[in-house]
């Protein structure tokens, strides 16, 4: 390390809300970035001691073990129902779920939509990587048309296998949500915006405003079978065409 840090201040380091565990994600996987952003939001809002992590089944299944927060692990798709149970019996807690597209938008469709419709005062972080990561690359409800996956080896055919679901737009149709947004991480601007969006979603919860959904377009270098840089480009140039970025609801 050629430069001394003696006369310098640390401006970026490991968030307090995380313990020392290494993330179990693949190299270059955006899951890690979002996980870090959440920890940072928790730090900045000073809510670690009130926060509850609800990990899904998926690549982030172990996430509840990495935070210095109480946590649990939800049955596939049911995180929003579990969050509802926790939040309702103890409204002082800051409760968030973290879910992949399989959990949130396939098996958990009903739980995801109805928690939003009740306006549960929770934060839902939705990792849209257009694939089932943990189980090895099957089609997700968000898989792009024509995209290869292990369970659509000829590419997703909309007529047989359905179309990529824009979940944020669907949730935005409901009356209760206070904040519904789609973010991405593929360049500096988007990276910073995503961090802010996550923090805002948590802040709204602290302020008892109600339900937030932060959908983040992310990569899965492993199952997309792409390098991380190529994956970034794919996100910026292809994925956003199906999934437009932006805030769909902000009733803060």
């Amino acid at each position, binding site marked *: 390390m050629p430069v001394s840090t003696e006369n310098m201040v640390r401006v970026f380091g490991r968030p307090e809300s995380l313990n020392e565990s290494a993330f179990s994600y693949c190299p270059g996987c955006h899951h890690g970035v979002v996980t870090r952003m959440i920890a940072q939001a928790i730090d900045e809002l000073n809510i670690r001691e009130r926060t509850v992590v609800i990990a899904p089944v998926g690549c982030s299944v172990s996430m509840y073990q990495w935070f210095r927060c109480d946590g*649990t692990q*939800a049955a596939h798709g049911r995180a929003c*129902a*579990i969050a509802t*149970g926790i939040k309702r019996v*103890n409204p002082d807690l800051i409760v968030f779920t973290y879910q992949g597209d399989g959990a949130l938008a396939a098996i958990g469709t009903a739980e995801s939509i109805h928690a939003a419709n009740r306006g549960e005062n929770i934060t839902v972080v939705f990792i849209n990587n257009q694939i089932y990561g943990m189980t090895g690359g099957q089609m997700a409800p968000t898989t792009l048309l024509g995209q290869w996956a292990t369970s659509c080896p000829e590419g997703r055919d909309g007529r047989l296998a359905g179309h990529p679901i824009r979940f944020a737009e669907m949730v935005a149709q409901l009356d209760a949500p206070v904040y519904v947004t789609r973010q991405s991480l593929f360049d500096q601007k988007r990276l910073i915006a995503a961090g802010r969006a996550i923090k805002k979603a948590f802040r709204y919860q602290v302020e008892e405003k109600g339900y937030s959904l932060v959908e983040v377009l992310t990569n899965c270098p492993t199952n997309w079978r792409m390098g991380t840089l190529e994956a970034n480009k794919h996100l910026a140039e292809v994925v956003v065409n199906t999934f437009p970025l932006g805030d769909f609801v902000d009733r803060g």
Partner: protein
Amino acid sequence: MAKIDKVLMSGNEAMAEAAICAGCRSYFGYPITPQNELLEYMSAHMPNAGGVFIQAESEIAAINMCYGAAAAGMRTMTSSSSPGISLKTEGISYIAGADLPCVVVNVVRGGPGLGNIAPAQGDYFQATKGGGHGDYHMIVLAPSTIPESVELVMLAFELADRYRGPVMVLADGMLGQMMEPVVLPESIDPATLPAKQWAITGARGREANLVTSFYLDPVELNEMDVRREERYREIEKNEVRYEEYKTEDAEVVVAAFGSMARISRTAVRMARSEGIKLGLLRPISVWPFPYEPLRALSRRVGTILTVEMNAGQMVEDVRLAVAERAETPFYGQLGGLVPSPNDILREVKRYAG
């Protein structure tokens, strides 16, 4: 008989009120006949008790809300009837795997499939042998009257907390919808219940609490599972409950649980009035099952007739206990039909004398 303090209530309402008395302050359910009055009672009374009521979007959501509330340390309950309970089996397995206390009421109806809404006992196997996946057990309590439903709902919360697992109250459409006078128990203030050190309450000044059923490493999962099995052995030792009625001199004994047992009790009286030495063994806990008392009985009676509102389920547990020492015939009706005292008596006469 005390004239005071008895309230005429349906079983569904009585079980709801009993839960509130037990300090349950969160209920999550979904409508299904014949348990609707339980949910409706909760919708009217839980808010007044300062508790949480949610009509969930489905039975699956409801059981997972229970998972959440239980993880947060609250006494919690859900209820449904047969098809709805099937939908909860994954959630129940998770609750068992995460060692969470939770009470589940099943007001059983005719099946399989949609079947109908008449009373039945076709979910005995599902309840006692694990409807969900993996090695887990639930304590399953089968009330026979409405006062007993109240008692057993109270007990269910107690046992759920003590052994940290799901406890089922196995009722049926008859018990849910009939009315009987009950004396309501004294209410437990949830604030006076012992704190749950393991619960999710915010990691304030302590290590993080993690509630999970996920153990990637088989060695670790095996260890958790074995520890749970040890708890099950303890439950089997401590929590077997049953009732015997006129078995002392019986030559034939009816084994029956729930509604079927109270109907059988009338058959016993009728038989006795005809000079037939009939007795009744009624499991109250169907898991853990009263194998020992049945084993003892099987050494002195010739026939143990199991009567159920199903095609023969508990009879397997009876046969496990009896081990061919006595005859173990079965009599049952299915599809929501309810055997009457006369039906049972007729059947008994095939084996008596």
